């Protein structure tokens, strides 16, 4: 226990220090984790030693979770649309890279079996690093992002046949072991079955996954959500992911692929966003741990001994992979800068390489020395990727190719509605009903699962969703909508959201509900164009009622409320400019209150307030009182 806590302290401290620094320097979190790993690893501080490899295996589960989340964001329709890129680009990438690396190996004097095995292994790229880096920079929706994703997905699929093929390339066939060592990709139960049964079990498992995911899982989650036990929902989400992973391992499929499929199945359910936000932190931590472990496992003494070889291998690997990818990108008619991003993003070795390398060593496909060199090479190439992406961003990226490329048509816009309402509590739902009653269709996003369930049963178009996610807003129709109405009441969240919306969807007009004066100040400061205070009108209504009960005629009370409101709105704008400055705010506020009271008090002195001066007979009496009555007198 003690040792575990110490290790956890070391890993967490390294992450907490290194990641913000790396992000600050514009390097991205992945590089931060890798550096943290190097620093705490055996080569520098030596806080963690040989267990780095074990940690890496444990942390690989982060990749599994990541693919679940990725699957959640990917509706089946989109996946179907990617099928060309998946099979075409992915297949050609694996085959092309394996051939190129294999040929290079042969050219450097490796036996062809060893060379081909190395080629197949090194064809894998790092799902973890690539997706994390692309998502972090918001590049997933770009052409290169989508194509990279398709290729990574194909690689995940390809691991299975590669695991099957590798033993056939063994140097000494008699030493061949059954697949199963290595890592998370060996089958356990199906190995002893004949091929056709194995296929049947595999198909059955996938069918089970899809069927259960469609029917049982949403019903179960509905039940759990109703219990309003946040942590039970989280536990259920984890159980789902881990359960899928176990099932997949049981039948010899990649757990990452299985959870990905599970994610896709649940992508259309109403729990899509709840699940995602539950899994996200686990995914983030485990992935971080994984990256740290990669950093820690870089064998610097080995690299030091064979510096020239390793550096040559890294350069050769990255160049070869990038060249193959660039050629594919050209074939797929990608834009020049997107093609380059595609090539650089996937030019590293991946976490599957470690799995496959250890598997290959066990099966005597690769000599220990070659495998050791390749592990170092892969780790270094992974560490290089964030740097390459930073370079691309700095020197190649054009504005048009950045993440917020609004010109590219996106898929799956369910709501071609003019108005998006965020938050559907009392306030939001009143706004929504009012708009609907006037023939305006709205798309509603809300984070309260029970409420959404009820509203959905009433037949309303309400979705679970965290509106702070750009892709979610996009699928809610932000590209074609005119207005977005923020009614959550959480000022800080709305400010952040307003900034994001302005950045990603500049054409959208933002209306926001402000809770109280300070909330209004903060939203005005955040340049939200239409800020409406949630309680002003109802408070004045109540005030009018109160004045009436005290004997003031209703219309006069109503006029007084209108005057109050106008004055208050005007001073709100003034005060919003200085509200951060306590002293200035106070003095200006005092002045405003004095002004208002003075103008209202005119009543008390017997006349009518200034704005209703035309209804005041005083001056008329003074002027015309002595003469015969005039037209207005």
């Amino acid at each position, binding site marked *: 226990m003690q040792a575990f806590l110490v290790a956890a302290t070391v890993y967490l401290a390294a992450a907490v220090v290194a990641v913000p620094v790396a992000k600050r320097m514009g390097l991205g979190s992945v590089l931060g984790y890798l550096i943290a790993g190097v620093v705490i690893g055996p080569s520098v501080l030596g806080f963690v030693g040989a267990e780095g490899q074990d940690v890496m295996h444990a942390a690989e589960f982060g990749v599994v979770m990541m693919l679940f989340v990725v699957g959640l964001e990917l509706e089946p329709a989109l996946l179907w649309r990617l099928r060309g890129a998946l099979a075409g680009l992915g297949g050609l990438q694996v085959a092309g890279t394996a051939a190129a690396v294999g040929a290079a190996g042969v050219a450097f004097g490796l036996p062809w079996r060893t060379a081909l095995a190395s080629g197949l292994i090194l064809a894998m790229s790092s799902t973890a690093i690539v997706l994390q880096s692309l998502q972090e920079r918001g590049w997933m929706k770009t052409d290169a992002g989508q194509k990279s994703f398709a290729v990574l997905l194909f690689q995940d699929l390809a691991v299975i046949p590669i695991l099957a093929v590798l033993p056939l390339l063994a140097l000494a066939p008699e030493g061949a072991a059954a697949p199963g060592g290595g890592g998370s990709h060996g089958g356990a139960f199906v190995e002893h079955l004949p091929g056709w049964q194995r296929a049947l079990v595999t198909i059955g498992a996938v069918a089970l996954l899809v069927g259960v995911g469609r029917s049982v899982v949403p019903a179960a989650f509905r039940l759990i959500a109703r219990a309003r036990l946040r942590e039970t929902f989280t536990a259920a989400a984890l159980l789902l992911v881990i359960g899928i992973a176990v099932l997949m391992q049981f039948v010899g499929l990649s757990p990452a692929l299985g959870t990905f499929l599970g994610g896709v199945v649940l992508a259309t359910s109403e729990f899509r966003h709840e699940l995602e936000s539950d899994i996200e932190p686990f995914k983030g931590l485990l992935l971080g741990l994984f990256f740290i472990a990669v950093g820690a496992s870089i064998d610097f003494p080995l690299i030091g001994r064979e510096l020239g070889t390793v550096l040559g291998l890294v350069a050769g690997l990255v160049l070869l992979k990038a060249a193959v990818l660039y050629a594919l990108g050209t074939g797929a008619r990608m834009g020049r800068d997107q093609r380059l991003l595609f090539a650089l993003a996937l030019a590293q070795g991946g976490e599957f390489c470690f799995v496959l390398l250890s598997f290959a060593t066990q099966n005597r496909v690769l000599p220990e020395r070659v495998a050791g060199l390749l592990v170092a090479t892969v780790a270094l190439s992974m560490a290089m990727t964030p740097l390459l992406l930073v370079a691309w961003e700095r020197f190649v990226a054009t504005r048009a190719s950045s993440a917020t490329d609004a010109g590219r048509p996106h898929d799956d816009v369910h709501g071609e509605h003019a108005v998006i309402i965020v938050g559907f509590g009392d306030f939001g739902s009143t706004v929504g009903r009012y708009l609907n009653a006037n023939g305006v269709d709205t798309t509603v996003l809300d984070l309260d699962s029970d409420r959404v369930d009820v509203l959905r049963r009433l037949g309303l178009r309400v979705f679970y969703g965290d509106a702070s996610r750009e892709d979610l807003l996009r699928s809610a129709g932000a590209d074609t909508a005119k207005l977005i109405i923020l009614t959550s009441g959480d000022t800080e969240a709305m400010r952040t959201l307003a900034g994001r919306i302005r950045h990603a969807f500049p054409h959208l007009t933002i209306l926001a509900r402000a809770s109280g004066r300070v909330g209004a100040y903060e939203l005005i400061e955040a340049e939200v164009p239409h800020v409406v205070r949630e309680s002003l009108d109802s408070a004045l209504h109540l005030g009018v009622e109160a004045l009436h009960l005290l004997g003031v005629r209703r219309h006069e009370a109503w006029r007084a409320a209108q*005057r109050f409101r106008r004055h208050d709105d005007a001073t709100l704008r003034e005060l919003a400019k200085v509200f951060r400055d306590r002293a200035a705010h106070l003095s200006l506020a005092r002045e405003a209150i004095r002004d208002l009271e003075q103008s209202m008090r005119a009543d008390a002195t017997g006349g009518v307030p*200034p*704005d209703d*001066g035309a209804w005041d007979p005083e001056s008329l009496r003074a002027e015309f009182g002595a003469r015969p009555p005039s037209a207005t007198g």
Partner: protein
Amino acid sequence: MSRVLILFAHPALRTSRVQRAMADAVRDLPGVTFHDLYEAYPDFDVDVPAEQARLSAHDVIVLQHPLYWYSVPPLVKQWFDLVLEHGWAYGSQGRALEGKVLQVALSAGGRAQAYGPGSFNGYSIAQFLAPVEATVRLCRMRWAEPFTVMGTHMMGAADIREAAARYAALVRGYVESDAVAAGGR
């Protein structure tokens, strides 16, 4: 050159054909300020200082509205009540509007024959507008012969186009005339 302010009052523009065409014909004319009262004051909370400043900044005031129950729409009356203050618009000290021209531009469903002595409505348009005219004169403004579009219920698209064009020509004429401005200053 005269500065023309159009005070436009229509509580249900969606249902209108003639007033909409008239408004569209003058809305963007150079030298014209088009002020849509029902759009500015949906709650009848007329901003008096702003209205007075706007009046002061123009030479010709066009009051464009449909005739409802032989009179102006209610917001116009509210506007009269609140904006034309004693001591500003009328009274011994009230000379802010002196010399400005007030031009009524109205539309009415009934045809011209339906107005006048012995007609269906019994009185002429001029008679129905007497309170407005008196208001204008009390404010020392110059009363212009009202511009009327009669029989709107029976008008076809061509008639509406023609009426809108006539109206726009009238407004353009004011913009281009110097006499008004000279008289007003």
